């Protein structure tokens, strides 16, 4: 009886490990969904509508600057900069399907692990009951 119980417990543990193993592995193989998913932040701070005209310092109204559309003005602020704050780096304007998919995949694996656990537990109960009734 005891041996059976122990065996059942070991099996249930193995089943859980089998279920969670791929979850860890797949997290690693999907190189951090975080960067892409994080960059296009839902930006709670942003005003969703263009109605609020931000108080941007409207500079250079004369339009008489020395020319050249590609004219490099070293990034950070000069008083005459038309773009008052130059962002750093490149904008992340492409969210790939795989990156937004990873959440779904993780959920599926979690559900799989839970199913395996439930199955293991069920088996254990059935076996115990069978043993108790002497079958």
């Amino acid at each position, binding site marked *: 009886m005891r041996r*059976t119980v122990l065996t*059942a417990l070991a*099996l249930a543990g193995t*089943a859980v490990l089998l*279920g969670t193993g791929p*979850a860890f592995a*797949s997290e690693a193989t*999907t*190189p951090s969904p975080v960067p*892409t*998913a994080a*960059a*296009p*932040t839902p*930006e709670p701070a*942003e*005003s*969703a509508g*263009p*109605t609020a*005209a931000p108080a*941007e310092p*409207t*500079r250079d*109204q004369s*339009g*008489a*600057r020395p020319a050249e*559309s590609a*004219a*490099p*003005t*070293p990034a950070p602020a000069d008083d005459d*900069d*038309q*773009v008052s*704050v130059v*962002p*750093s780096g*490149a*904008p*992340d*304007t492409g*969210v790939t*399907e795989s*990156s*937004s*998919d*990873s959440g*779904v*995949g993780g959920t*599926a694996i979690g559900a*799989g692990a839970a199913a*395996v656990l439930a*199955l*293991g537990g069920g*088996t254990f109960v059935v*076996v115990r009951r*069978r*043993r108790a009734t002497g079958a």
Partner: protein
Amino acid sequence: MTAFSRRAFTTAALASLLTACAGQGTKGTAPESGSTAPQPRSPHRTVPAEQARPLARSVPVRLLIPAIGVDTPVISLGLAPDGTVRVPPVTADDRAGWYRHSPTPGRTGPSVILGHVTVGRYGDGVFRRLTELHRGDRIVARLENGTAAEFAVTAVRTVPRTRFPVDDVYGNVDRPELRLITCGGARTGDGYADNVIVFAALSGAESPTSGER
């Protein structure tokens, strides 16, 4: 151990293996729909030679690019805590966003508008076809005050994201210009390798009475 319990254990073990395999399978289904190839530019359309007059300051509310079927609302975007520019939220109704620290469209300087090329599971973003624009194509930015700034494309560039031309995009210019920015190029594990930048110059303006808002 009885024959029954042995069978039960075998079944449980088999089921756990199958579940584990199924779990792994779902990860491999990320489709690679459509990579963005840089488009050749054909300079067959002319850009108006004379410089249009700057417009009064007014925030953009809508962006239209007839050549690629874009007609989108425009939201206002600021900076993220890490100093990068924010991008529009990832939603089914994707929109473009105007960088609020850049001039409004029609003012002297580079007005910057960003949009997604793809929005994850929602599919194509509003700037999906930006690479199809050619020199001379028309871009219209409708402003809050009822006027509209009309731009003509002067260049379309695809650049590696690691070498984003900050000066070309945000640097001072002597006339009203527009920059449309999205991602493009090869898809990597977590995004795109390149940025697509459309450069355009003001070519005209519409008064509130001449068209719908």
